């Protein structure tokens, strides 16, 4: 499949090609602009920003805002910077992504390879759950977390993210596995492999591309979540976005925009990294299933 792509049958003239490059570069400009604003303003002293030079390059370059955002900025009563919250996020995101991906993979496997009566309706129910606006689940979710004793814990937060992540991960894996030959599963059954052995030995080794897509999607969404993190984490266990929000949003205090932007870029670093590193596999993963419908 990837091989077919390297040779497109479309031919274009020199003029058209130039035009194409121009258009593509213009879009680069469009996409890069906000990042440009964030970066240039994160390396200027605050006076330069409030002085009105928000769009221009820094005349006095400083990395002090970065250092401040990371380790000394005030996000609570203690000047800790974003650093401790970074690890909170990691310890929430990693299990949440792992669990929702594994569940999604198993669900997709069952819904395509172990079909039973009513499975399509179940899938429909799960898919529709992707569309629930998160604002309405806050209160009842808090009640349930309270009953489970998970209120204010990372485990509770992981649970919440798994619950609302499993719909999409199931969708991805189901579409991917739908194209996976059922005969392989049957052959493995005859060979004596059980439910989990088939999954582990036969399907999973071929699921690389869709795992990448699913992990990117879940990682981005969970990492960037603010609402659940703020509502269900304890103060010290709050994820990075909550800390960032505390750094950025202050109604009646002095706004240090340069620190805010540095903090924002720091907070986005893991997701940016994921996109840059896994980006090339991303399109491949989408190709391999999820857009085939």
């Amino acid at each position, binding site marked *: 499949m990837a091989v077919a792509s390297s040779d497109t049958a479309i031919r274009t003239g020199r003029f058209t090609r130039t035009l194409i490059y121009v258009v593509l570069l213009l879009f680069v400009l469009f996409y890069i602009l906000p990042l440009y604003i964030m970066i240039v303003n994160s390396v200027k002293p605050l006076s330069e920003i409030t002085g009105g030079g928000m769009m221009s390059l820094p005349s006095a370059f400083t990395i002090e805002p970065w250092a401040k955002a990371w380790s000394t900025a005030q996000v609570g*009563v203690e000047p800790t910077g974003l650093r401790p919250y970074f690890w909170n996020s990691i310890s929430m995101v990693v299990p949440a992504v792992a669990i929702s991906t594994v569940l999604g993979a198993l669900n997709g496997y069952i819904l395509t390879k172990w079909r039973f009566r009513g499975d399509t309706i179940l899938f429909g129910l799960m898919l529709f759950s992707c569309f629930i606006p998160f604002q309405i689940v806050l209160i009842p979710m808090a009640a349930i977390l309270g*009953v489970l004793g998970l209120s204010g814990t990372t485990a509770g937060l992981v649970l919440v993210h798994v619950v609302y992540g499993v719909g999409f991960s199931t969708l991805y894996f189901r579409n991917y596995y739908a194209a996976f030959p059922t005969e392989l599963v049957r052959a493995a059954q005859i060979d004596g492999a059980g439910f989990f052995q088939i999954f582990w030995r036969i399907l999973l080794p071929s699921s690389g591309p869709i795992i990448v897509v699913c992990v990117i999607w879940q990682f981005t969404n969970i990492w960037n979540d603010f609402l659940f993190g703020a509502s269900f984490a304890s103060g010290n266990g709050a994820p990075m976005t909550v800390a960032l929000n505390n750094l950025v949003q202050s109604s009646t*205090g002095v706004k240090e925009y340069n620190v805010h932007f540095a903090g924002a870029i720091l907070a986005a670093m893991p997701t940016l990294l994921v996109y840059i590193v896994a980006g090339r596999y991303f399109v491949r993963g989408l190709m391999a299933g999820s857009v085939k419908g």
Partner: protein
Amino acid sequence: MNKVIRTLKLTTAAAAFSVSAAYAEDVEVLHWWTSGGEAAALNVLKQDLETQGIGWQDMPVAGGGGTEAMTVLRARVTAGDPPTAVQALGFDILDWGNQGALANLNDLAAQEGWDEVVPEALQFFAKVDGKWISAPVNVHSTNWVWANKSVLDANGIAVPETWEDFVAAVETLKAAGITPIAHGGQAWQDATVFDAVAMSAGGPEFYKAAFIDLDEETLGSDTMKEAFDRMAFIRDNVDDNFSGRDWNLATAMVINGEAGFQMMGDWAKGEFLNAGKVPGEDFLCFRFPGTQDQVTFNADQFMMFDQGGTVSQEQAALASAILSPSFQIAFNKVKGSVPARTDVDGSELDACGQQGMKDLAAAASSGNLFGSMAHGHAAPASVKNAVYDVVTAHFNGEYDSETAVLELVDAVSIAK
């Protein structure tokens, strides 16, 4: 199945145990003071408690003037795990108090004599059914005007005493090519201005009838239309770019001499000080013309959540520390507001701060201290936001003053 539930219970019990074991002596405080100065000021409180052997579990949630924090609070209360103390404003405190969710601090209050030192208008928001439920931290007053002194001097403008003076001053600045009024077009900023304008246009009786008693006739009166007309005048004298601007960027315009005036609460002072400006020399602070005798206020408080019927030792210590004169001064020096108790020595405060304290004491004793509508101290949140809707729609030219008055009556009656 039963077994599963049992295992579940065991694990959750274990989790709960480990949590409570680690923080048995802690107070957990939910607040939205996360910007440098405020948070540092709060740290004073934390250290104070730590000397008493009480740990401080910090739970900062910034955003939207406490909106996010209130959302989080709902989640925590629903989960059956409310924090010890929660920063809150005005009617939110009463709402929670009326639900029976807050602790009764009367013993402590009697012991420390809160009734005598906290102004009555403020007590209104700290008590339910005669019970103290909340510890006030400060009083912000919102009917301030901030001005760039050199701009005013250069154009020969004296501090305006009346609305007409103010109009004249604005016209002068406009003629000189300076943006007369720096303003950020966000609903709460529009409403902050509206508070002062309405007070100035109709006087204290009018303000009280309209925004505190929510009297329909007053809301629909010609005076209200006059207030909206004055808002329209202000709208005509802000720059084109006001919409959505953060208040502190508007303040920066005054600091940089791009604009003459800004109507904003006393927290704006921090921006001036931070920029190295000196009150009285570089910038001026005065009450909005026509409201010299009145103070519209909002007060930050920490409401104390019921922890199972009794007030724990830690909770009492926290409340007591909040109302201690030393913390009141230390905090308000940084915050720009004035202490919630009127009996503390204000000599450590700067000129604006001292004037604020003086104004507050005077207004409190003369019955001229009113809760700010814009900051949720005049009417419940639903009404406040209904007023926001109308004020901001009118300010942005969605409809004229006459319609605005009708809309206001309607919106308030739906929200009541």
